[in-house]
């Protein structure tokens, strides 16, 4: 485990976008051969029911751009003062250049700005907070952190493990250098030995596109696979101890945490984590996944916007976060949100 304290870093605002188009497991005839009993079991156990998906011509960058503009407008930010942009996603616009350059242009940012793409999914938001904090402590003053994914474009509609699970979303967070900001604490981990547990193996340079990688309708077969059992075993083994250890590192008791905002992997996993760390379910929001699906890196900011907006805008909150997934990677953090700007969930038409 890597432990890290990030000082002088204030989160000023969070904005989250979800596509308007909604799909429901109840309407999907391709899944489970319309076996109603099986469908009921999946819904009751996993918590998944609905998800939001983008249209063919919309990318993660589109969602994040709109979220960024919402923050810029509502926080009255002078764009020329943004000196860092981080785009965290596995669904970039292009192989090259990095999508952060595309967004740099679309947002009209100044040339005095460091931009970077980071390929992370479910750990992305928490990882991004840490990375932004590192940048702010080495010269930057204002970072725009954009986290999102459109995994609906990856998933094979006939794959019961992945198709009904993932929903699309994009988020933007502004972090600023502030010597009076409370410290954030992080615990960061990686295990590449299990990288095949969650993988889209086609389309990169290891398995470049070829003729038999396409469905009859012309869409590309990304060959997405998720080993649910391996991922579940991993979460039980690593996540409770990661959360406990970052609390210990920060010198904070569980009772001092207002909410545990965890990546919305599935309800079964979240309940099992809650039981293991002995935290009441009321302190761990779990409904984002039911309404919007597993939104990868955007699931944590979406949960904050959807469940905690009134609280984070009205008072100071101490949150424990944990993102975990692709890589495999898992990152826990203790952060404070001090009356920040937080948008309602914004719907994106397209």
């Amino acid at each position, binding site marked *: 485990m890597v432990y890290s304290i990030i000082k002088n870093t204030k989160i000023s605002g969070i904005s989250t976008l979800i596509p308007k188009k909604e799909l429901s497991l109840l309407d999907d005839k391709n899944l489970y051969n319309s076996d109603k009993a099986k469908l009921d079991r999946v819904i009751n156990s996993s918590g998944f029911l609905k998800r939001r998906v983008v249209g063919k011509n919309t990318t993660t960058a589109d969602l994040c751009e709109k979220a960024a503009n919402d923050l810029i407008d509502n926080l009255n930010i002078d764009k020329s003062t943004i000196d860092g942009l981080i785009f965290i996603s596995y669904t970039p616009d292009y192989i090259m250049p990095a999508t952060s350059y595309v967004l740099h242009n679309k947002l009209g940012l100044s040339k005095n700005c460091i931009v970077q793409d980071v390929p992370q999914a479910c750990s992305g938001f928490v990882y991004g907070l840490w990375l932004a904090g590192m940048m702010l402590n080495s010269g930057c003053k204002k970072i725009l952190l954009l986290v999102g994914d459109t995994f609906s474009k990856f998933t094979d509609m006939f794959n019961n493990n992945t198709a009904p699970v993932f929903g699309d979303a994009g988020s933007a967070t502004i972090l600023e250098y502030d010597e009076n900001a409370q410290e954030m604490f992080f615990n960061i981990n990686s295990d590449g030995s299990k990288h095949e547990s969650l993988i889209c193996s086609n389309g990169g340079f290891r398995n470049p596109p070829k003729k038999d990688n396409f469905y009859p309708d012309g869409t590309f077969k990304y060959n997405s696979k998720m*080993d*649910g*059992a391996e991922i579940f*075993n991993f979460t*039980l083994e690593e996540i409770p101890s990661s959360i406990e250890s970052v609390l210990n590192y920060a010198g904070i008791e569980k009772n001092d945490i207002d909410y545990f905002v965890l990546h919305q992997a599935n309800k079964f996993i979240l309940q099992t984590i809650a039981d293991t760390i002995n935290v009441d379910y009321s302190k761990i929001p779990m409904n984002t996944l039911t309404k919007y699906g597993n939104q990868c890196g955007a699931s944590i900011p979406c949960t904050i916007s959807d469940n905690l907006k009134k609280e984070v805008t009205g008072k100071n909150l101490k949150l424990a976060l944990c993102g975990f997934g692709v890589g495999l990677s898992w990152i826990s953090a203790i952060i404070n949100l001090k009356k920040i700007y937080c948008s309602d969930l914004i719907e994106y038409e397209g």
Partner: protein
Amino acid sequence: MKREDFLNEIISAIKISTQVKEETVISDIKEWDSLAILTLIALFHKNFNFRPDTTSLKNCKNLKEILDLGVKYYEK
């Protein structure tokens, strides 16, 4: 927890609707799917703080082999 009690926990948690015994072949249990595997992992974790290797779990052919994964944890 005794071995037979754990078997009853499995039957209850996975909601197996037919009569089964240790010799019952997994592929004959209609409720046995990827969700059942997750339920099983959770049961081992909750009751014994033990997580069976997932490959071994998926290779089990009958309920006896599943139960044998936790053999050192059961009460005599």
